[in-house]
């Protein structure tokens, strides 16, 4: 039987024994909201930063990870801290608004108390509030903005392009944007964005001669201070996503060219140099230690909602590295005080966007409603009701991915199923209906086809090892910033600290060791090879069919690998 939300609230209220009710907590939050969003003006250069909203125009729930492991140099360091470890590091109190904003702790109860997060109408109100006492402030968008919802996919990114213009985005860089194809990205740059939004990316060049595809950087004058914004697109776009969508573009980290670009901007008079990056936080931290002359890297990609910047020392001085989370949940505010051409001080705050604490901006809401109107019937189809929390984010299987791999195994009559280790995808609370929109939140991509492959045991091991190295290679420059491929049917042991090729052990299927020479029926989706175009029905159709049959989704059992070497790691809570 499934609980509805009111019943759930009642259960939670009983469980929260000892005084404070949920309502009084929210009342306190409401009173605190004025303080939360009252950020006094500081300095004369202000940068507002959003990243990785994944096309979530309306408020949603989003559970932060309970598994975000770091090893070697990254062990126990930001961003590889979860739950209590994160609270302790940043000095937040348990059960506080901040504890809910930045960690998974107490997720269900706190989400009921504080309500949904993000939404462009609420974000617009916050942006206006910040701009009100920050004349000349720029709004920077770190990318992964045009992908992640049904409406973005069906409108060919147009809903997000229009919303970003209305929000007042000044400069952006790219990742998933490129999966709409080279032509569409250039069309938006040259038509919709002309004279309004600059797309910057120093590391995207033509594959043949290495000519720049976008402006490497833009120079903006803010209150008399020249500020350079350099773009760093996701370096591994044609590897993590289909090469055929950007056949003529080459990416990569391009560290030397980054240094050249910084030097050029400085030579042209930039007093503040900021990199708008889609590298992922570990890559940004390494880059900050090696490239000189960057004042701040405003980062995304790895979806780490980090309340304070990491200060990285390097040969040129120091560089601030931030990461502003995902799904429209936060707005980063970086203020610099620039005096006599030099930065004299800074303030940084990552503001959580609580929809109930920020009234919706009327114009933005009207724009969103208009964009969604043609698709509402499809989006609102109720497929099932969930009894457990559904989420994706985490290094290994999340509950929503578990549903996807379970659906793949059943619908494709497969023994094993793989689902990509994406970090986007919203969360659902126990008792919530699962609408078609929610399935699309997990699956809406331009290469959604499902596949069934007869795969040898050896190949299965190769795939797991390959993805595992993208996640746990000790050198961040060799990491791609996604999570481990989600696995259904197959159990395995994972030792992230082992060498590449030896991390995956004891692969078992139905109690039997996987035979390297034997073939298995493996289902999957999101193939990157051009040959797999239109391989099978889009994944959302398959998952929707499965959910319609299930009707009431019991809490799913997570197929987690047995982890070796992760004991006492502050990046995991078990």
């Amino acid at each position, binding site marked *: 039987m499934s609980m509805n939300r009111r019943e759930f609230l009642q259960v939670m209220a009983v469980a929260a024994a000892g005084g404070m009710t949920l309502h009084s907590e929210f009342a306190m939050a409401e009173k605190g909201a004025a303080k939360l969003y009252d950020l006094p003006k500081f300095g004369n250069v202000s940068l507002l930063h959003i990243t990785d909203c994944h096309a979530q125009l309306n408020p949603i729930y989003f559970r932060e990870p309970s598994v975000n492991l770091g090893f070697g140099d990254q062990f126990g360091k930001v961003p590889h801290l979860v739950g209590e470890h994160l609270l302790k590091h940043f000095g937040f109190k348990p059960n506080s608004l901040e504890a809910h904003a930045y960690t998974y702790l107490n997720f269900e109860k706190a989400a009921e108390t504080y309500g949904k997060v993000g939404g462009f109408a609420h974000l617009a109100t916050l942006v206006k509030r910040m701009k009100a006492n920050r004349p000349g402030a720029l709004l920077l968008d770190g990318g992964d903005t045009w992908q992640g919802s049904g409406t973005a996919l069906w409108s060919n990114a147009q809903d997000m392009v229009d919303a970003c213009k209305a929000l007042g985005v000044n400069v952006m860089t790219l*990742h998933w944007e490129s999966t709409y194809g080279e032509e569409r990205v250039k069309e938006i740059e040259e038509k919709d964005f002309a004279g309004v939004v600059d797309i910057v990316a120093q590391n995207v060049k033509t594959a043949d001669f290495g000519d*720049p595809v976008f402006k490497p950087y833009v120079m903006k004058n803010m209150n008399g201070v020249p500020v350079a914004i350099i773009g760093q697109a996701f370096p591994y776009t*044609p590897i*993590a996503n289909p090469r055929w969508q950007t056949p003529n573009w080459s990416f990569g980290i391009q560290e030397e060219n980054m240094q050249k670009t910084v030097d050029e901007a400085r030579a042209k008079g930039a007093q503040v140099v900021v990199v708008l990056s889609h590298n992922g936080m570990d890559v940004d931290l390494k880059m900050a230690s090696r490239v000189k002359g960057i004042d701040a890297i405003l980062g995304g990609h790895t979806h780490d909602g980090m309340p304070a910047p990491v200060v990285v020392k390097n040969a040129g001085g120091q560089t601030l590295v931030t990461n502003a989370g995902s799904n429209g949940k936060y707005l980063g505010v970086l203020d610099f005080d620039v005096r006599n051409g030099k930065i004299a001080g800074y303030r940084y705050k990552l503001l959580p966007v609580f929809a109930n604490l920020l009234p919706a901006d009327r114009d933005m809401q009207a724009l969103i409603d208009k964009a969604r109107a043609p698709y509402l019937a499809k989006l609102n189809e109720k497929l099932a009701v969930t009894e457990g929390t559904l989420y994706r984010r985490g290094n290994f299987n999340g509950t929503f991915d578990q549903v996807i791999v379970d659906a793949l195994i059943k619908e494709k009559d497969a023994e094993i199923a793989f689902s*990509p280790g994406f970090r986007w995808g919203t969360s659902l609370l126990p008792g919530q209906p699962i609408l078609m929109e929610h399935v699309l939140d997990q699956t809406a991509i331009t290469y959604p086809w499902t596949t069934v492959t007869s795969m040898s045991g050896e190949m299965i091991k190769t795939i797991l090892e390959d993805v595992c190295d993208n996640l746990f290679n000790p050198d961040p420059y*060799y990491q791609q910033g996604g999570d481990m491929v989600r696995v259904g049917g197959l159990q395995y042991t994972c030792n992230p600290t082992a060498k590449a090729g030896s991390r995956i052990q004891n692969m078992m299927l139905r109690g039997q060791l996987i035979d390297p020479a034997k073939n298995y029926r493996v289902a999957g989706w999101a193939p*990157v090879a051009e040959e797999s175009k239109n391989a099978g029905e889009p994944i959302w159709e398959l998952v929707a069919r499965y959910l319609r049959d299930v009707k009431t989704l019991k809490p799913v059992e997570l197929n987690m690998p047995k982890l070796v070497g992760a004991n006492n790691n502050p990046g995991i809570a078990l």
Partner: protein
Amino acid sequence: MNNQRRSVLKTGSGAALLSMLAAAGLIKPGMALAEWNKAAFDAKSMADTLKALGISQPADSKDVQITGPDIAENGAVVPVGVTSAIPGTTMMAILIDKNPNALAASFTLPEGTEANVQTRVKMGQTSNVYALVKAGDKYYTATKEIKVTLGGCGG
């Protein structure tokens, strides 16, 4: 973007381009053939390649730089470059440890040439890639790991 270069390449066939470059004196016919060392290109392993080239113990040098992607976008065409700041550099080669034949390219540099080459190599799997440089009668190396992955599953 420089569209001129692109149209020159599109209109001219590969052979025509080569003869143009030859006419311009950029490439001397037979230049590559003159130094072709079949045994070295046929060698399977790094050790055999060095042996075929008659090299015993090349030294790592900070004056030799190898550039390439950290992760290849396409294993079939991986851009790799080598530069040498060692005076009197006469030969530069690219070796890929895990390739079926380790020696991928060898360049002979006429006197006065800037020791800077760029090419595309094919890689089947993640491997250390070596730059091998000859200056005088000594050999120097630099190494970079280039990862070749299956792709997908990111972000």
